[in-house]
């Protein structure tokens, strides 16, 4: 990493000067006849880079359930809590922490759903997610996540950037900064959203103080999949080709005159923009997928929605996209959780399971880390009346799971008390989670740094240890 750090300094200098260029070698080739060459050279900020040590995963698909589902109704079975349903919450428990919405001493509320064991590992999952459950032996659940924020947007920022306020780069940005891209015709960090954007807004895939080239690019469900991808009315593909050629011809005149490598870069970027006008629609066009595949995901050719996004996620990592971030909104069940979570779980169970199965059958799961998480979990106490029971935010003990990309399947990390309220063994912080993800990608989280305001910043701030138990 020492060598890389020196390189970082060079790159940093380049960003400062505006020189995000292709460098001398590419410049020479452009000045020759080799027009449009975009081979990444040493100072291309998105060139593919080697990791600190052998990487277990090359790409990441990170599903964030915006609003935060109840771990107690999906992953963690607490029979004792179920027995206590309707009893007043123990006084000391109520006084032990601040709640977002609960203001008076609430009743306990066990899950209304059945749990059962799955696979050889015998992990329990609830009846709401039978298809995910069936893959228990591929999945490692961290039962003992804990965060620091009890409100959605700060918690979303904390989960995505390791810091509960604005200004820091998101995990996808860090990863792209660390590893670069393996596909020149697509962005290296792609974001897809079902429902509304989470409260923290676009900062959830922002690049913070990292150069903006590392920010996520949203592939949108309606309109242009990438903003401004389609030509204005009446401008046909051949016309666009001619216009781009003319722009680049004139830019090459300038390049010859002024010799600024930035112009060479811009020529390359116009070529890439033109290529994206076909590569992105190709990617988004799922009509070529077999009926079996669509049946597996529950997707429909060229439709939108979560199932289609899962299918697109597979298509993206297949093409070498480094980091795919899916957001699915609608998990903030403060009331009527029984019906609501059932509906939501139903909408994601099949697609997520399909994604794992599909990656596996294509031999991609070994290289692809799939993460399913949320900004926090939910309380074992009821919010509101039992008749319209909901659950409040809970940051002190919640679950996320991972699969593929060097994760040991069938593992459960940590233990919580009988009520699912507090961690009793092996707590895993958000920084630990981040350290684990970077580790699986072959990066030492203490060495992936960026100097800003005189300080070497890390995704993991000043903490974090990879969770050894889930490494295969």
């Amino acid at each position, binding site marked *: 990493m020492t060598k890389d750090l020196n390189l970082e300094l060079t790159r940093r200098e380049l960003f*400062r*000067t*505006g*020189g*995000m*260029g292709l460098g001398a070698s590419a410049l020479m080739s452009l000045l020759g006849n080799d027009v449009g060459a975009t081979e990444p050279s040493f100072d291309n*900020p998105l060139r593919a880079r080697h990791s600190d040590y052998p990487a277990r995963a090359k790409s990441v698909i990170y599903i964030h359930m*915006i*609003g935060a589902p109840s771990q107690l109704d999906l992953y963690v079975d607490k029979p004792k809590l179920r027995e206590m349903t309707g009893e007043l919450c123990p006084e000391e428990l109520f006084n032990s922490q*601040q709640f*977002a*919405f609960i203001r008076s001493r609430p009743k306990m509320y066990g899950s209304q759903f059945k749990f059962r064991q799955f696979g050889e590992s015998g992990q329990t999952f609830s009846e709401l997610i039978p298809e995910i459950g069936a893959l228990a032996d591929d999945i490692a659940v961290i039962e003992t996540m804990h965060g620091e924020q*009890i*409100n*959605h*947007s700060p918690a979303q920022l904390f989960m995505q950037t390791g810091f509960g*306020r*604005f200004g820091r780069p998101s995990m996808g940005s860090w990863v792209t900064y660390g590893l670069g891209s393996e596909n020149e015709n697509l962005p290296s960090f792609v974001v897809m959203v079902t*429902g*509304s*954007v989470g*409260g923290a*807004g*676009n*900062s959830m895939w*922002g690049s913070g103080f990292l*150069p*903006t080239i590392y920010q996520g690019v949203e592939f949108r469900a309606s*309109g242009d999949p*990438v*903003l*401004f991808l389609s030509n204005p*009315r*009446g401008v046909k593909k051949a016309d*666009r080709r001619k*216009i*781009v050629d003319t*722009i680049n011809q*004139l830019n090459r005149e300038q390049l010859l005159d*002024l*010799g*600024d490598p930035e112009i060479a870069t*811009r020529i390359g*970027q*116009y070529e*890439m*923009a033109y290529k*994206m*006008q076909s590569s992105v629609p190709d990617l988004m066009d799922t009509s070529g997928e077999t009926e079996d595949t669509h049946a597996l995901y529950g997707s429909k050719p060229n439709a939108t929605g979560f199932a289609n996004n899962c299918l697109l996620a597979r298509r993206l990592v297949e093409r070498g996209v480094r980091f795919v971030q899916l957001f699915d909104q*609608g998990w903030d*069940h403060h*009331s*009527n959780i029984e*019906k609501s979570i059932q*509906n939501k779980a139903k909408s994601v169970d099949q697609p997520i399971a399909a994604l794992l199965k599909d990656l596996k059958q294509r031999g991609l799961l070994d290289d692809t880390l799939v993460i399913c998480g949320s900004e926090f979990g939910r309380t074992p106490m009821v919010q509101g009346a039992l008749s319209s029971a909901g659950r409040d*935010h809970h940051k002190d003990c919640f679950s996320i799971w991972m699969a593929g990309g060097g994760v040991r399947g069938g593992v459960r990390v940590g233990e919580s008390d009988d009520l699912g309220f507090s961690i009793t063994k092996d707590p895993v912080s958000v920084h630990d989670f981040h350290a684990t993800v970077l580790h699986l990608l072959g990066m030492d989280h203490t060495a992936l740094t960026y100097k800003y*305001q*005189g*300080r070497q910043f890390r995704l993991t701030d*000043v903490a974090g240890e990879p969770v050894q138990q889930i490494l295969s």
Partner: protein
Amino acid sequence: MIRRTSIYTALVSLALVSTQAIAQQIDFEKQVWPILQSNCFDCHGEAIHEGNLRLDAKTLAFRGGITGIGIVSGKPDQSPLYLRLVTAAEGERMPAEREALAEDQIDVIRQWIEQGAKWPDSVGSDATEISRHWAYVSPSRPELPMVSDFQWPLNPLDYFILQKLDSKGISPSSRIDQRRLVRRVYLDLVGYPPTYEQVEHFVNDSSPDAYQKLVEGLLASPQYGVRWARPWLDLARYADSNGYQADQYRNVWPFRDWVINALNNDMPFDQFTIEQIAGDLLDEPTQSQQIATGFHRLTTLNVEGGTDPELSRLNQVIDRVNTTATVWLGSTIECSQCHNHKYDPFSQKEYYELLAYFNNTPIEVSGKSSAFNFYGPTINVNRSLKERRKYIAAEEKKQSVQKDLEKVTAQFDEGYGQWLQEMKTQSTESQEWHILRATNAVSTNGATLKILEDHSVLSTGENPDKDVYEIEFTSDLPEITGFKLEALTHDELPGKGPGRFTAERPNFVLQEFTLHHGGNVLKLSDALADFSQTNFEVSKAIDGDESTAWAIAPQFSKPHSAEFLIQEAIESDSPITLKARLVMNYGGSRVIGRVRLSAMTGQRKSNAPSKRILDLAAKLERNAKEEQELHNAFLKLQPEYVQAQKAVTDAEKALLALQAPTALVMSEMEKPRETYLLIRGEYKNNGDRVLASTPSILHAQLEEDSEQRDRLELARWLVSPENPLVARVTVNRWWAEFFGKGMVVTEEDFGSQGDLPTHPELLDWLAVEFMEQGWSMKHIHRLIVNSATYQQNSKARPDLQELDPTNRWLARMPRMRMSAEGIRDTMLQISGLLELQMGGEPIYPPQPAGIWRHVGRNAPKYNTSQQTDRYRRGVYVIWRRSAPYPAFTNFDAPDRTSCVVSRSRTNTPLQALTLLNDPMYWEMTQALGQHLHQRQRDGAVSLREMVSYAFMRTVSRKPSEREVDILSNLYIETVAQLSDRPADLMELVGQKDKSASAELGAWYYLANVLLNLDETITRN
């Protein structure tokens, strides 16, 4: 400090138990010095003295660093030198980021201190003062250096630049040509390029001071302030919304206008600072001085349900401290929020002492329990005299129509009693309701519409952001005279509904409700609802306008209904099918969760009162409120009253539109808060109480014994001529705006981890000049653009490739891609659309649909500006933190959630797509194309001349022959091709001009090329 002491005490007692070795006399030189030498001097030695500590010099080692004492003879448990070796506290144990010392080494240190810490004078350095980091020493004006060529420098700046070049054996570049120069200085000073005519005027002005005149004109232009406000607004994290989940609109633009005005007036930077930090604390502050304090009201604020208001407040104060240190001190004091600064001499205590200055403003969150809102001190902003006159006139008008209304009301006093009697006897008997059978229900956006047994339709499953329901009903009633639409509750709906928004606010927004029968749309009228939300009256659901709607907040979780009459009764002997269409495109899933439709038979007079009114009339006793309601219902039946009432409403609206806008300001509480050091920076983990004070490493406070430890004192301290940082940091940022990077490349960090200045003498010279010339920004900018350095050309040179590949010594001007706003302003200017109107509320230029679609209540709506507003400059574009303007984001604009000192400057394919295709840019492309087409038709000039004109209009310089060839070829080929493709052509140019549309199409393509050139978006 409390924490450290207790940990230390524990450790010390442990240490005492574990080290029972018999004390031997320690020899400092042989035993202690080598340990210090090999473990400590790297960071605390002659070259580097982190934490202001040197351990290689006796005096300084005893004195200690920023935390105080270093060694107390005889008392290891009071000597940080020892304590820092054994502490378990994270980040405190020394040597930092390395293995702890071996136990026997630690023992040696402890015993040596116990034995009196004898350090022979002969060992180590005899230094008694720590040499200060360069940036903490006040600048003094250096002499102009000797240079190789006295002809070259045009002003003092150039001497420093040339001297450096001389020392490197590099020669400066030649002067840039006039055309490129005029474009450069326009872009740098006002932020958009000169027009074709302005370029011609300049190059034809042969007077010796033509350039100076040009510069003076630009410095005096009001557009100078618009251009230069942008970097300051980045520092100020200026945005029009809160940030976080409740990312609502804030009225903050008066601050933006204040900045632009201040820059245009060349307000001295010390005053500029004092007014922004503490304008409210000046004696009898003017309105403008109060608006200036908006600077620190621009922090993000989380008012999401369930937040902790006090924590939100603390986060704001922390942001104020950090931003102040970054902007005025170029220092990253932020690091000392949780612990003493690792590298720079700021202690954690000093951080909170600085925080204490900002800790005395009122909380900015209103609300109780779990629902909160943005809040805090505001003032009304006066407008111009003309506008105030208008306001007074409007007020008079309102009073006069109000009197009319009172008169009219009095007329009807008698009629009321009579009407009341009628009401008491009237009944609704003849009117009957019949639930209609739903037969088919479809959601256009993927929700599942289930028909329940009671004929209501429940929306389940997918909860789309927006939806339109189409529901079919059958009726076998012989005659229908009206309809009732019910929005019902259901257990499956969030908070029981009736809307599908959130469980806390299960609202719906029904924009349009239409009924179709036999291919006709039924004319619905006389809408009555059991309840309507303010400004969302039920009549708005049938007004044919989708920008208005019926909604029911805050009457959630209960059923609601709306009744409508139809103009002509539907009569039929056989069963009929009716189709209902409910448009609910407000967003955020504000759709009705359960719908039922009933038909009315019998009569209701179209001005018949609602059941509520009849019930009220029937009551034996009414309270005052009910009486008032009844009286109003009566009055509303009188046309004269309605007319008079409308006049009053109109007058009120007019008055409201003329009302002074508000601005957010700071204000000091009568009783200041107590400020405590927060242990590890943790909320509520209070350490010792601290009092407001400034960091000791910097210049002293103005008056040591002043009672006034307030923001005003801090502001004056920041701009004291003694402050070694403020002038350097400020001129360095401007330097970076002109030259691509600062002389100190790390513009945000002048501390020990920051870069050293490339031209330290020049930096100091400019800093002193700045302060001595009345803190005038325009003076510094004038010096820069009049320098020979600035007027060099920007061509790459083979010799520099090796000697100075990153152009640190400025032997040529760097080329720089412009800022996001600069690019838009430039395109507007070239296309001829630029509108220079200044000030006022933010503008909403076109952006694709669906950019603003984030969770959260009362989200503002993006109502695209029409007419000239959409062509105003980028600084006026609405800045919503959760989703900033996408054409800006793609060109590295920040989200303005925190202070940004310098934006990155990337070069990506998304930028190409934006300029090629963004409808906003395409609009400019078309405007330019139409202009060129028109000009071609107006004047009989050759194609080559036309192309040259278009090129010069875009990038100011003349094209080469080859460039003209390339563009002419495109034109000729395009005209030929488009003429063969009439359908494509029609799509491209519409019906504008049938006779010459292929030419117009070709100009569109040329305009598209020109507006995408690297040169067009680059400051050469």
